[in-house]
C-alpha cells in the first residue's frame, strides 16, 4: 500500500468531528444493518473507531476499512439518535471520499460516474436505448407492482424483482417548461431526479398535474443531472462536483420560490450535502449552491407548508393506504407529517399507520447492489410491517424506497401497490 501516512494526514481533517463520538453505543439501537449482522464494524461507533485508527496509523488495512465504511445505508438513523450530536453523515461521506481518493475508484464505477453520469446526454441516450430493448431480457412478474425479473442471470441483478426503465423518460415527456405562477402566486423549480426520470415518469407527471391544479408555476429546465449522491457515497468527489455544477448551470436561469423534488434522497442531498461540500467552490458557484439548498424541499412539504393542502374528512371504507417514511426525509430533514397530510387529503383513501413506519427499507442506493442479502432482510421486516397494516397501497416519498418496496413485496407475492404520495394525491384531483 502506497503511503499510509498520507492517508492518515488527510483523515485528520475529520478528527474534530470524530472525537465528538463518545463510544456510547446508542447508535446500535437503531442501525438496521447492525440489527441483521450484529457486527460492531457495521454500526457507526465501529466505523468511526476504524477511521480514527486509520487517522492515527494504528491500522494499516485501508481496503478493509473502506469495505466496512461502505457497508452502510447512509440512512441517518444513527445520527438522529446520537446523544452527542456527532455529524455522522458528514464523517461517513467525507471518510469515503478520502479513503477512496487514496485507494482509487473501482474501474466499473469510474466508467459509470465519469464516463456517463457526469455526461447526462450520453447517459440519457444509453438508457433510452436500454429502455427499448429491455423486454428482450426481462419478464414481467407482477402487473400491479409493475415489477420484472431478469431472464438471464446477471450478478448485478440477481433474483431482484425490479422496476424497468420507462419506454419514454420523463425528460422526453416534459422538459424545458417555464410556466407563470397562477392563482397561488407561487412558482417552483422542479428537480425530478434520475429514478423518476428514467423509471417512474408518471410520478413526474403527477407533480406537474398537482402544480397546475393549485396554480403553481413550474420551471423545469433542460440539462438537469443527477443530484450526485451515488458519486458521493462511492467517494467520487470529482464527479460529484461536476454534477453539482451541471445542476447549478441548469437552474441558474430560473426565478422560483421553492425547488421541489419527489425524491427524498435528492432533497436531502441538495439541502444538506451540497452546502457541506461547497466550502471551496468559487464564490459565485457557492452562492448559487447555497441558494438552491435553501429553497430545496420535498413536494409534499411544499404542498402542505406553502400551498396549504389540508387533510379532509372522508367516508371510511376507502382504499387503505399506509406510508413508509424514507430515511432521508424523516431522519435528515424531519419531514413526516406533510406526506401524511397529503394522503389524508385524498378523499377515497383511508390512511392507516404501520408499525415502525420510519424504519429504513434497506435500499440505500449502492448498498442494495453490494449487500443484497442484508438489504433483503431489512426489506423483509418493512414488508412484514406493510402487510400487517392490511393496507392495499403503500405510499412513500422516495423513488429508491419505491424500488425496494416493489422488490420485497413482489418477491413475497403480496398484492399491495407501491405508489408515490403525490401520485395518489394527483389522482384524487380528478
Amino acid at each position, binding site marked *: 500500500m502506497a503511503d499510509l501516512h498520507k492517508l492518515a494526514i488527510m483523515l485528520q481533517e475529520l478528527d474534530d468531528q470524530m472525537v465528538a463520538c463518545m463510544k456510547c*453505543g446508542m447508535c446500535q439501537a437503531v442501525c438496521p444493518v447492525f440489527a441483521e449482522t*450484529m457486527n460492531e464494524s457495521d454500526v457507526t461507533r465501529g466505523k468511526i473507531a476504524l477511521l480514527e485508527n486509520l487517522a492515527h496509523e494504528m491500522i494499516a*488495512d485501508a481496503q478493509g476499512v473502506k469495505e466496512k465504511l461502505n457497508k452502510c445505508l447512509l440512512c441517518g438513523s444513527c445520527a438522529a439518535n446520537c446523544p452527542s450530536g456527532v455529524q455522522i453523515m458528514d464523517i461517513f461521506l467525507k471518510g469515503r471520499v478520502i479513503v477512496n481518493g487514496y485507494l482509487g475508484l473501482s474501474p466499473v464505477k469510474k466508467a459509470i460516474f465519469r464516463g456517463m453520469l457526469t455526461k447526462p446526454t450520453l447517459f440519457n441516450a444509453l438508457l433510452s436505448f436500454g429502455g427499448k430493448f429491455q423486454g428482450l431480457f426481462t419478464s414481467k412478474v407482477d402487473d400491479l407492482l409493475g415489477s420484472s425479473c431478469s431472464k438471464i442471470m446477471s450478478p448485478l441483478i440477481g433474483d431482484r424483482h425490479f422496476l424497468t426503465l420507462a419506454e419514454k423518460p420523463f425528460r422526453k415527456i416534459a422538459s424545458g417548461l417555464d410556466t407563470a405562477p397562477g392563482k397561488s402566486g407561487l412558482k417552483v423549480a422542479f428537480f425530478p431526479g434520475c429514478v423518476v426520470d428514467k423509471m417512474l415518469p408518471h410520478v413526474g407527471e403527477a407533480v406537474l398535474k398537482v402544480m397546475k391544479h393549485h396554480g403553481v408555476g413550474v420551471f423545469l429546465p433542460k440539462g438537469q443531472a443527477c443530484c450526485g449522491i451515488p458519486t458521493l457515497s462511492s467517494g467520487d468527489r470529482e464527479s460529484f462536483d461536476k454534477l453539482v455544477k451541471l445542476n447549478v448551470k441548469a437552474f441558474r436561469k430560473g426565478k422560483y420560490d421553492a425547488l421541489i423534488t419527489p425524491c427524498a434522497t435528492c432533497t436531502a442531498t441538495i439541502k444538506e450535502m451540497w452546502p457541506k461540500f461547497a466550502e471551496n467552490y468559487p464564490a459565485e458557484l457557492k452562492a448559487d449552491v447555497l441558494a438552491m439548498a435553501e429553497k430545496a424541499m420535498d413536494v409534499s412539504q411544499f404542498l402542505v407548508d406553502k400551498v396549504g393542502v389540508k387533510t379532509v374528512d372522508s367516508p371510511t371504507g376507502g382504499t387503505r393506504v399506509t406510508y413508509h417514511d424514507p430515511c432521508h426525509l424523516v431522519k435528515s430533514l424531519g419531514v413526516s407529517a406533510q406526506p401524511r397530510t397529503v394522503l389524508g387529503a385524498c378523499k377515497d383513501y383511508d390512511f392507516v399507520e404501520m408499525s415502525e413506519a420510519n424504519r429504513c427499507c434497506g435500499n440505500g442506493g449502492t448498498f442494495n447492489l453490494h449487500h443484497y442479502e442484508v438489504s433483503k432482510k431489512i426489506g423483509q421486516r418493512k414488508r412484514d410491517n406493510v402487510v400487517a397494516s392490511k393496507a392495499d397501497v403503500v405510499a412513500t416519498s422516495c423513488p429508491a424506497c419505491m424500488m425496494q418496496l416493489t422488490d420485497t413485496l413482489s418477491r413475497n407475492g403480496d398484492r399491495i401497490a407501491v405508489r408515490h404520495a403525490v401520485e395518489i394525491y394527483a389522482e384524487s384531483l380528478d
Partner: protein
Amino acid sequence: MPSDALTKEFQAIVGKENVLESEADRHSYSYDSAVLDPVVPELAVRPTTSEELGKVVRLCNQHGLPLTPRGSGTNLSGGTIPAQGGIVLLTNALNKIVEINEEDLYAVVQPGVVTATFANEVAKRGLFYPPDPGSQAVSTLGGNVAENAGGLRGLKYGVTKDYVMGVDFFDVNGELVKSGSRTVKCVTGLNLSALQVASEGTMGVFNEIILKLVPPPAANKAMMAIFDDIDKASETVASIIAHHIVPCTLELLDNATINYVEDFTKAGLPTSAQAILLIEVDGHAAQVAEEAEKVVELCKKAGAVEVKAAKDEAERNKLWEARRAALPALARAKPTTVLEDATVPRSQIPAMIRAINEIGKKYRLDIGTFGHAGDGNLHPTILCDKRDKEEFHRVEEAVDEIFDVALSLKGTLSGEHGIGLAKSKWLEKETSPATIAYAKALKAAIDPKGILNPGKIIGG
C-alpha cells in the same frame, strides 16, 4: 494473531462466519464506552448456541488464551477491553428469551438479550422488569448482571442484583454450573449466583439467567422541585425518605447541568436555580396522590422555590426529557465526556457536590453533576478534550481527588459502572489488602490460568 490452526478450531465450533479475524473487525472490538486506550484482540468469536459457548470457553482454557466476554460494550469501566489479548467472546447472538412465566413471575433469558427488548416483552404481558440503565436500548442483560447495573428506579426497586434469581454459567473448563432457582426462596448450597453478579466476566461466562418480575405500579406522578441552594435540595432528599416515602425516582441536576440542558433543549428550565430535583412516586392511585401531596409539602418546607407537578402524561414526559437530556447536553459541550460514578451516603450529597465544584475550580475543569440523588449515586461529568494531553492529565488528577473525597465521606468507587480496568488501581483504597487477597485466592482457585477476563477488577 493466533495460529491458523487455532482459528480453524474456533471456526469448527461456531462456523466460519462467526470468527471475525480481519484487522478491521478486530479493531472494532478493541474498545468500549470507557475513555481508555484500546487493546486489539486476536479474534472475535461469536457462539450462537449454549453448546458452542461452552466449547469456546473450553478451547480457550486448553490453549491458555484469555477470553473477554462482551455484551454490547457499553460499560464505562473498560470491562470489555481485552487487556491481555486473546479473544473477545461475543454474546450478542445468544439473544433468546427462553421463558416468561406469568404465574410464577420470573423469566429465563440468554445473556445477549437487549435490556429494553426484554422489558418491552415483559410489559406486553402486563408485568414489569424495573432495572433501567440509561443504556437499556443497547445494553444486554448479561452485561447488566455482570456489572450489577442500576437505573433511575433504583431507589425504590433496587438494581439488577435484586432481580437475579439464578445464573447458569460455564466455568473455565467449559462445564455448565447451575446456581439459584426458579423459586423466590432458595438456600441450597453456596450462593454462586451472587458471586456472578458484578463479577464483570471474571468468574464465569453466563449461559442463562433467571430474572424476577414484578407487577407494574398502577399509577405514577412526577414532579420537579426547584432550589436556589443545593444544600436545601439534599436536605429534601433526606427528609422525603425520613418521612417514609420511597419515590421510585429521585434525581438531581446541578446548576451547571441545568444550564447545559437548557442550552440544548430550550425546555424552559430555571437556569439560575442551584439544583433541581425530579421526583416520581408510583403505586396505587390513592397512595400516589397522597404521597405526591406530601412530597410537594416536604419540598416547600425544605425551601424549594417552586414545585411543579406534571398534570398529565405529556407533562410527565417533558420532565423526564429534561433528565434524559443531561448526558447528551453535557456530551455536546466538549469533545470528550468523562462520566464518573462517585457514590456517597445520601446525607453526604451536599458535601460531595461542594467538593466536586472545588476540584473543578482547582484543576480548571468544566464539571456538570447529575445523578440518582435518592441513592447517593452521583455522576460528575468532566468535559474536556482527550487530545489535549495537559488538560487530560488534570482530568486524571481531578478524578483521583473526587474518589478520595467520596471514600472519605464513606462512599464507594462505583455505584453502578463497575471497576473493570479503569478503577482497579483504586480498589485497595476502598477495601483492604485482606479483601483483595481473599478475592485473588478465589479467582486463582476458580481460574488458575487467568483465562476469564484477566486484568479486571483485582488487576493481575
